[in-house]
Protein backbone atom coordinates (compact mmCIF):
# COMPACT_ATOMS: atom_id res chain seq x y z
CA UNK A 1 0.00 0.00 0.00
CA UNK A 2 1.08 3.58 -0.61
CA UNK A 3 1.47 5.66 2.51
CA UNK A 4 -1.07 8.33 1.69
CA UNK A 5 -4.63 7.75 0.62
CA UNK A 6 -5.62 9.12 -2.77
CA UNK A 7 -8.82 11.10 -3.18
CA UNK A 8 -11.03 9.92 -6.04
CA UNK A 9 -13.76 12.25 -7.29
CA UNK A 10 -16.54 11.38 -9.72
CA UNK A 11 -18.78 13.49 -11.95
CA UNK A 12 -21.98 13.20 -14.01
CA UNK A 13 -23.03 9.62 -14.83
CA UNK A 14 -19.83 8.16 -13.39
CA UNK A 15 -20.83 9.73 -10.05
CA UNK A 16 -24.43 8.55 -10.34
CA UNK A 17 -23.51 4.96 -11.22
CA UNK A 18 -20.86 4.63 -8.51
CA UNK A 19 -23.30 6.23 -6.08
CA UNK A 20 -20.88 8.63 -4.45
CA UNK A 21 -19.18 11.92 -5.19
CA UNK A 22 -15.77 11.18 -3.72
CA UNK A 23 -13.82 8.75 -1.59
CA UNK A 24 -10.32 8.26 -0.22
CA UNK A 25 -8.67 5.01 -1.21
CA UNK A 26 -5.35 3.34 -0.39
CA UNK A 27 -4.10 2.16 -3.76
CA UNK A 28 -2.13 -1.10 -3.99
CA UNK A 29 1.44 -0.58 -5.18
CA UNK A 30 0.76 -2.47 -8.43
CA UNK A 31 -1.73 0.20 -9.51
CA UNK A 32 0.77 2.34 -11.40
CA UNK A 33 -1.13 3.99 -14.23
CA UNK A 34 -4.56 5.45 -14.87
CA UNK A 35 -5.43 2.32 -16.88
CA UNK A 36 -4.43 0.14 -13.88
CA UNK A 37 -6.61 2.27 -11.62
CA UNK A 38 -9.67 1.82 -13.85
CA UNK A 39 -9.15 -1.95 -13.93
CA UNK A 40 -8.67 -2.11 -10.15
CA UNK A 41 -11.75 0.03 -9.47
CA UNK A 42 -13.91 -2.10 -11.77
CA UNK A 43 -13.24 -5.04 -9.48
CA UNK A 44 -14.55 -3.25 -6.39
CA UNK A 45 -18.23 -4.04 -6.90
CA UNK A 46 -21.22 -3.97 -9.15
CA UNK A 47 -21.63 -0.18 -9.10
CA UNK A 48 -18.02 0.31 -10.20
CA UNK A 49 -18.37 -2.37 -12.86
CA UNK A 50 -21.45 -0.56 -14.11
CA UNK A 51 -19.78 2.87 -14.18
CA UNK A 52 -16.53 1.68 -15.74
CA UNK A 53 -17.87 -0.97 -18.12
CA UNK A 54 -16.22 0.83 -21.06
CA UNK A 55 -13.05 2.23 -19.48
CA UNK A 56 -11.89 3.70 -22.81
CA UNK A 57 -14.63 6.36 -22.67
CA UNK A 58 -13.73 7.51 -19.15
CA UNK A 59 -11.81 10.80 -19.00
CA UNK A 60 -9.36 11.32 -16.17
CA UNK A 61 -7.75 14.32 -14.51
CA UNK A 62 -4.91 14.16 -11.98
CA UNK A 63 -4.55 17.14 -9.63
CA UNK A 64 -6.99 19.10 -11.85
CA UNK A 65 -5.22 18.46 -15.19
CA UNK A 66 -6.35 16.19 -18.02
CA UNK A 67 -4.22 13.07 -18.47
CA UNK A 68 -4.39 10.04 -20.74
CA UNK A 69 -4.75 6.47 -19.52
CA UNK A 70 -1.01 5.75 -19.74
CA UNK A 71 -0.19 8.43 -17.17
CA UNK A 72 1.51 7.28 -13.95
CA UNK A 73 -0.48 8.08 -10.84
CA UNK A 74 2.35 8.11 -8.28
CA UNK A 75 2.03 11.18 -6.06
CA UNK A 76 -1.49 12.07 -7.21
CA UNK A 77 -3.47 13.85 -4.49
CA UNK A 78 -6.76 13.87 -6.37
CA UNK A 79 -7.83 11.78 -9.35
CA UNK A 80 -11.10 12.64 -11.09
CA UNK A 81 -13.08 10.23 -13.29
CA UNK A 82 -15.78 11.57 -15.58
CA UNK A 83 -17.53 11.15 -18.95
CA UNK A 84 -16.56 13.18 -22.03
CA UNK A 85 -17.36 16.82 -21.29
CA UNK A 86 -20.45 18.59 -22.62
CA UNK A 87 -20.05 22.21 -21.51
CA UNK A 88 -20.18 25.33 -23.64
Amino acid at each position, binding site marked *: MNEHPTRLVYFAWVRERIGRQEEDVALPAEVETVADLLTWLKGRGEEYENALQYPEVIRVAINHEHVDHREKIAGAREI*ALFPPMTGG
Partner: protein
Amino acid sequence: MTASVEPYVSIQREDFDVAAEIARLTTGQTNVGAVVNFIGLCRDEAGALSALELEHYPGMAKAEIARIANEALERWNLCGLTAIHRFGKMAPGDNIVLVVTASTHRQAAFEAASFLMDYLKSRAPFWKKEHRADGSAGDWVDAKEEDDEAAARWAR
Protein backbone atom coordinates in the same frame (compact mmCIF):
# COMPACT_ATOMS: atom_id res chain seq x y z
CA MET B 1 2.70 42.62 -26.09
CA THR B 2 0.04 40.00 -25.45
CA ALA B 3 2.11 38.48 -22.68
CA SER B 4 0.85 41.24 -20.40
CA VAL B 5 -2.85 40.53 -21.12
CA GLU B 6 -4.50 38.59 -18.31
CA PRO B 7 -7.66 36.67 -19.24
CA TYR B 8 -10.75 37.26 -17.12
CA VAL B 9 -12.25 33.84 -16.28
CA SER B 10 -15.28 33.25 -14.08
CA ILE B 11 -17.24 30.13 -13.15
CA GLN B 12 -20.49 31.27 -11.63
CA ARG B 13 -24.09 30.37 -10.89
CA GLU B 14 -25.47 33.84 -11.65
CA ASP B 15 -26.13 35.32 -15.09
CA PHE B 16 -23.68 37.66 -16.78
CA ASP B 17 -24.21 41.12 -18.25
CA VAL B 18 -22.93 41.13 -21.84
CA ALA B 19 -22.69 44.93 -22.11
CA ALA B 20 -20.73 45.14 -18.85
CA GLU B 21 -18.38 42.39 -20.04
CA ILE B 22 -17.69 44.23 -23.31
CA ALA B 23 -17.03 47.40 -21.32
CA ARG B 24 -14.55 45.49 -19.13
CA LEU B 25 -12.38 44.93 -22.23
CA THR B 26 -12.88 48.28 -23.98
CA THR B 27 -13.10 50.98 -21.31
CA GLY B 28 -10.00 53.17 -21.57
CA GLN B 29 -8.55 50.92 -24.30
CA THR B 30 -8.09 53.11 -27.35
CA ASN B 31 -6.19 50.39 -29.23
CA VAL B 32 -9.19 48.02 -29.47
CA GLY B 33 -10.61 47.99 -32.97
CA ALA B 34 -12.69 44.80 -32.79
CA VAL B 35 -14.73 42.94 -30.18
CA VAL B 36 -16.27 39.52 -30.77
CA ASN B 37 -18.86 37.97 -28.43
CA PHE B 38 -20.05 34.43 -28.34
CA ILE B 39 -23.01 33.58 -26.12
CA GLY B 40 -24.17 29.99 -25.71
CA LEU B 41 -27.79 29.60 -24.57
CA CYS B 42 -29.95 26.83 -23.17
CA ARG B 43 -32.37 25.55 -25.84
CA ASP B 44 -35.49 23.42 -25.40
CA GLU B 45 -34.97 20.99 -28.35
CA ALA B 46 -38.35 21.89 -29.92
CA GLY B 47 -40.22 21.85 -26.62
CA ALA B 48 -38.81 18.54 -25.33
CA LEU B 49 -36.74 20.03 -22.50
CA SER B 50 -37.81 22.13 -19.53
CA ALA B 51 -34.26 22.77 -18.27
CA LEU B 52 -30.61 21.80 -18.39
CA GLU B 53 -28.62 21.09 -15.24
CA LEU B 54 -24.94 21.96 -15.58
CA GLU B 55 -22.62 20.05 -13.29
CA HIS B 56 -18.98 21.13 -13.05
CA TYR B 57 -15.72 20.19 -11.36
CA PRO B 58 -15.20 23.18 -9.06
CA GLY B 59 -11.50 22.55 -8.41
CA MET B 60 -10.63 22.26 -12.09
CA ALA B 61 -13.08 24.26 -14.22
CA LYS B 62 -11.52 27.69 -13.74
CA ALA B 63 -7.95 26.39 -14.06
CA GLU B 64 -8.73 24.51 -17.28
CA ILE B 65 -10.52 27.46 -18.91
CA ALA B 66 -7.63 29.71 -17.85
CA ARG B 67 -5.19 27.30 -19.55
CA ILE B 68 -7.24 27.46 -22.77
CA ALA B 69 -7.51 31.27 -22.50
CA ASN B 70 -3.76 31.63 -22.03
CA GLU B 71 -3.15 29.46 -25.07
CA ALA B 72 -5.43 31.76 -27.10
CA LEU B 73 -3.43 34.76 -25.84
CA GLU B 74 -0.23 33.09 -27.00
CA ARG B 75 -1.61 32.32 -30.44
CA TRP B 76 -3.41 35.56 -31.26
CA ASN B 77 -2.56 39.19 -30.69
CA LEU B 78 -5.40 40.16 -28.36
CA CYS B 79 -6.06 43.22 -26.24
CA GLY B 80 -8.33 41.31 -23.88
CA LEU B 81 -10.16 38.03 -23.39
CA THR B 82 -13.07 37.03 -21.15
CA ALA B 83 -14.62 33.60 -20.58
CA ILE B 84 -17.57 33.10 -18.23
CA HIS B 85 -19.24 29.71 -17.76
CA ARG B 86 -22.33 29.23 -15.64
CA PHE B 87 -23.33 26.14 -13.64
CA GLY B 88 -26.59 25.05 -12.04
CA LYS B 89 -30.07 24.78 -13.53
CA MET B 90 -30.78 26.71 -16.75
CA ALA B 91 -34.18 27.32 -18.34
CA PRO B 92 -34.53 27.49 -22.14
CA GLY B 93 -33.36 30.93 -23.24
CA ASP B 94 -30.93 31.36 -20.33
CA ASN B 95 -27.32 32.23 -20.98
CA ILE B 96 -24.81 29.42 -20.34
CA VAL B 97 -21.46 30.65 -21.61
CA LEU B 98 -19.87 33.91 -22.73
CA VAL B 99 -16.63 34.47 -24.59
CA VAL B 100 -15.47 37.99 -25.40
CA THR B 101 -12.30 38.72 -27.34
CA ALA B 102 -10.89 42.13 -28.15
CA SER B 103 -8.17 42.90 -30.67
CA THR B 104 -6.83 45.64 -32.89
CA HIS B 105 -8.12 43.97 -36.08
CA ARG B 106 -11.11 41.67 -36.41
CA GLN B 107 -9.50 38.44 -37.57
CA ALA B 108 -7.66 37.75 -34.31
CA ALA B 109 -10.83 38.36 -32.26
CA PHE B 110 -12.95 36.08 -34.49
CA GLU B 111 -10.43 33.26 -34.56
CA ALA B 112 -9.58 33.39 -30.87
CA ALA B 113 -13.26 33.30 -29.88
CA SER B 114 -13.85 30.31 -32.14
CA PHE B 115 -10.77 28.51 -30.80
CA LEU B 116 -11.81 29.18 -27.22
CA MET B 117 -15.30 27.75 -27.71
CA ASP B 118 -14.03 24.68 -29.59
CA TYR B 119 -11.53 23.86 -26.83
CA LEU B 120 -13.91 24.71 -24.04
CA LYS B 121 -16.52 22.27 -25.36
CA SER B 122 -14.15 19.32 -25.32
CA ARG B 123 -11.86 20.20 -22.36
CA ALA B 124 -13.72 22.28 -19.78
CA PRO B 125 -15.08 19.97 -17.03
CA PHE B 126 -18.83 20.61 -17.37
CA TRP B 127 -21.62 18.12 -17.99
CA LYS B 128 -25.21 18.80 -19.06
CA LYS B 129 -28.18 16.80 -17.81
CA GLU B 130 -31.57 17.19 -19.44
CA HIS B 131 -34.80 17.85 -17.57
CA ARG B 132 -37.61 16.72 -19.83
CA ALA B 133 -40.76 18.80 -20.31
CA ASP B 134 -43.01 15.72 -19.90
CA GLY B 135 -41.54 15.03 -16.45
CA SER B 136 -39.79 11.78 -17.46
CA ALA B 137 -36.22 11.19 -16.33
CA GLY B 138 -33.74 13.12 -18.46
CA ASP B 139 -30.44 11.82 -19.79
CA TRP B 140 -26.94 13.17 -19.63
CA VAL B 141 -26.17 14.92 -22.91
CA ASP B 142 -23.77 12.85 -25.03
CA ALA B 143 -20.54 14.41 -26.16
CA LYS B 144 -20.48 14.98 -29.91
CA GLU B 145 -17.69 13.73 -32.11
CA GLU B 146 -17.96 16.95 -34.13
CA ASP B 147 -16.89 18.86 -31.03
CA ASP B 148 -13.64 16.87 -30.80
CA GLU B 149 -13.12 17.37 -34.52
CA ALA B 150 -13.76 21.10 -34.16
CA ALA B 151 -11.07 21.28 -31.47
CA ALA B 152 -8.68 19.13 -33.52
CA ARG B 153 -8.66 21.62 -36.42
CA TRP B 154 -6.69 24.03 -34.22
CA ALA B 155 -3.93 21.49 -33.53
CA ARG B 156 -0.48 22.75 -34.45
